[in-house]
């Protein structure tokens, strides 16, 4: 699946994880520190992912100045 990451903005391809929770574990990310979006929709840790999904991992700490 394609994974979009922020801070800095980048994109990567990851194979294997079947759920959002597994994906976050693979990326060594704390669930409390991010939200995961598929398209415009939020997906929870126990939701299944498909190989052709595009997901965005959005950090909850963000800015504005």
């Amino acid at each position, binding site marked *: 699946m394609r994974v979009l990451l922020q801070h800095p903005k980048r994109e990567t391809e990851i194979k294997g994880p079947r759920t959002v929770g597994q994906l976050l574990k693979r990326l060594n990310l*704390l669930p409390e520190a991010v939200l995961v979006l598929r398209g415009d929709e*939020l997906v929870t840790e126990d939701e299944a992912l498909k190989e052709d999904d595009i997901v965005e991992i959005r950090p909850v700490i963000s*800015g504005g*100045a």
Partner: protein
Amino acid sequence: MPRHNTSVCGACLNDYVVEQVKRAIKDHTMFGRDDRILVAVSGGKDSLSLWDVLMRLGYDTAGLHIQQGIGDYSGQSHQKTAAFAESRGAELIFHSLKEEEGAGVLELAELTDRSPCSACGVMKRYNFNKIARDHGFDVLATGHNLDDEASRLLGNVLRWQEDYLAKQSPALPASHETLVKKVKPLYRLAEREITAYAVVNRIDYVIEECPMSVGSKMFVNKEVLNRLETDSPGTKQAFYFGFLERQKQEDLAREDETIRSCGRCGQATTAAICSYCRILEKVKTAP
């Protein structure tokens, strides 16, 4: 929402966020229906979500955006804030440091040997208060959330900064004739919950971190708390709400008795000349 051991749909998330804000306003007598509220908006998810919720609740609000002069980042922040205000037909007051003070945060930091975050903090605090007073607002509201307050508390406790602990409250009264009341109606909501609210309600906010905040202690404290929260959901809430409870019971919150008027501008300060005037002096005398 692990700290509540539940998952919610978008509609229920909105209800939850609105209820938490209503409870914060009531528990700390933040403001009433007749008050004019100035919301400090940076273009980030917290301040825009706060403004959105207060408008949803029918309060009389306007936004204040201070452009710090941090290149494209400030440009993007202003653009998103202005677009949000326009989409809701809301009043937005705009203040540019470069135009009004003669220099942006980066130049001010360089001229005064302060960090950009320190210069930014002084400029924001001064202008939030002064603009709120000059425009006749009763209250200034900021988008500080549970994570902001818990990480600030952690930093203050680690260094036993008792003066700061005494002043850390979701509502600070107008304790000087030049001060307006300041409130933090999002203090009951986790950063993750507010981000979810912004996403669900299609609020277009600045996702990037401020480029000046790289390596900030606040981020380290937040990461530590997020580790604890992941292992034991509810930790941040227990830490900060427990502090507020003790503050109330033991009357730890107290007004700063050393507060007085700045010898130059007359605004509230604890020094003879306030930090804002000291910074501006450097701008005036710069070669």
